[in-house]
């Protein structure tokens, strides 16, 4: 399959089940909501060492938020409900509770099959007995006295069985061209709901393979896609490819990742061969590890 001179490999991205939730952070203005949201979703590129993958889904207009102030919707994913609960709690405690004028709300209703995880439920103890609970419309909120006034947090948030690790690789003739294609792809993908691209700017340049020659490591550089090793290893790259970058996608459902991959690959292909984009590929582990397979040619069909 070739789109605008770009070869779409006959391969698939392999993704894994995760647990995810959405939280809404509001503040006096968007700038301060964003300050908190950036901290909340900081150091959350990969579950390998961060414990979760998180990102900003989009900004919210005042009429879209529970308290009528500007806000930011964040998605956060972890391998299990417990891990997710821990990450959400510590991050909310250090990055939202602390942020001036902020308030924290659930962005996902409770799922019948899944338990809810705490949001303000345990943060309330910061109130040292002065915290106040309010039941509004069947939901419990906590009012925690803080130095700038009151921190308002919803008690819990719903979680969903989600999908993490959807991905595709952009193979280009030069580093600037690969990055330009990634930027174009991310621009389009950020318009879509229910997905985040957790790496810095949405792009990762250090794709990994499973295992390493060193016993202590369970992942190491994906040498088959490293352009400088073309003559040294069993390479996947043709002579003209000089740079490869990857976009990783986490989403609430398989369909959301499908859509995001399509939009991203489409945008990269629009730059086409004339801008040095040669191939689109994807990362997988032979299909044995992850139950979700995103076949590139099917997505782009």
């Amino acid at each position, binding site marked *: 399959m070739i789109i605008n001179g770009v070869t779409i490999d006959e391969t698939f991205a392999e993704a894994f089940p995760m647990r995810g939730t959405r939280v809404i952070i509001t503040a006096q203005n968007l700038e301060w909501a964003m300050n908190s949201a950036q901290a909340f979703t900081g150091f959350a590129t990969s579950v390998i060492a961060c414990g979760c993958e998180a990102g900003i889904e989009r900004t919210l207009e005042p009429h879209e938020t*529970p308290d009528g102030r500007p806000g930011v919707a964040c998605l956060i994913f972890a391998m299990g409900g417990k891990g997710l609960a821990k990450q959400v709690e510590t991050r909310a405690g250090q990055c939202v509770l602390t942020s001036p004028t902020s308030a924290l709300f659930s962005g996902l209703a409770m799922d019948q099959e899944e338990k809810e995880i705490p949001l303000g439920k345990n943060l309330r103890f910061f109130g040292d007995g002065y915290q*106040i609970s309010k039941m509004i419309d069947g939901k419990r909120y906590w009012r925690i006295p803080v130095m700038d006034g009151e921190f*308002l947090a919803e008690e819990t948030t719903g979680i969903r069985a989600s999908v993490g690790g959807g991905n595709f690789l952009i193979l280009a003739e030069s580093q600037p061209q690969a990055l330009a294609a990634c930027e174009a792809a991310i621009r389009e993908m950020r318009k879509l709901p229910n997905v985040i691209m957790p790496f810095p700017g949405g792009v990762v340049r250090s794709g990994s393979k499973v295992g390493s020659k060193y016993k202590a490591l369970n992942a190491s550089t994906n040498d088959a896609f490293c352009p400088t090793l073309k003559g040294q290893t069993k390479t996947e790259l043709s002579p003209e490819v000089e740079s490869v970058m990857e976009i990783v996608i986490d989403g609430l459902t398989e369909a959301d990742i499908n859509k995001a991959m399509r939009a991203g690959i489409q945008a990269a292909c629009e730059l086409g061969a004339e801008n040095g984009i040669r191939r689109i590929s994807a990362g997988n582990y032979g299909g044995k590890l992850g139950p979700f397979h995103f076949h590139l040619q099917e997505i782009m069909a």
Partner: protein
Amino acid sequence: MSELILTLKSAPAQRVDCSPLTVDKLEGKSVKDIAALTLVVGNQKLRVDELFDIDGDDPAVMRFENATDKLDHIGHGMTTGTITVNGNAGAYLGQFMMGGEIIVNGNTGIYTACEMKKGFIKVNGNAGDFVGAARIGYKNGMTGGTVVITGNTGARTGDHMRRGMILIEGNAGDYCGSRMVSGTIAVLGQVGAHLGYAMKRGTLLLQQAPEKGISANFNDCGSHTLAFLPLMFASFRKLDSEFARVEPFSRVQRYAGDLSGIGMGEILVKI
């Protein structure tokens, strides 16, 4: 199935215990069965059809016509359905209620929504003393649900109240929020003396500064913009009430008390 209408034949001289007349207890019964049920009236028992003309057969949608303040315990422990009362209702309206809706087009007696757990009660009129309170000797009043009173309430509104909301469009009587454990009472009109007497926790939200002042047991915590108020006003918007139309405010003067006790309650007065 059509709305079950119970029309009172004549005003009873004695109090009538209407607690058997809820959908939970009438479900599956024929009109004949319902007519043959006995109600305790004063010191005797009377058949339902001796007191009421019965029309319709669906107890999930029930209506009392010509009701008087002698009809006690309407909607007792109900979990679902709606009851409309045209006329006054007696004491203990919606006691132990666990769901559903009661609309009274008239006044209610004492202990409206007594120990109510869930559901919705609207009184298009005045309510007596002890709205949402606990029975005498009991510790927990209302633990959930919403009560809207379009008129005034008597004394001790929300006595021992634990959760839920009481919304008063008119005035509240003396000792409003007394011994309150938690929950919210909002008043658009005036409140009587001894506001929040022995209040432990909870919120008394006032649109007007109380004419009789705030007791010395409440300390001024200053003026604040509270983030939960917009959410609360938003939740009012779906109610058929003046509260749905009132201009939302989040700027309030906060008083904490009752400091003779644990002092975790608050009176919020719009500024």
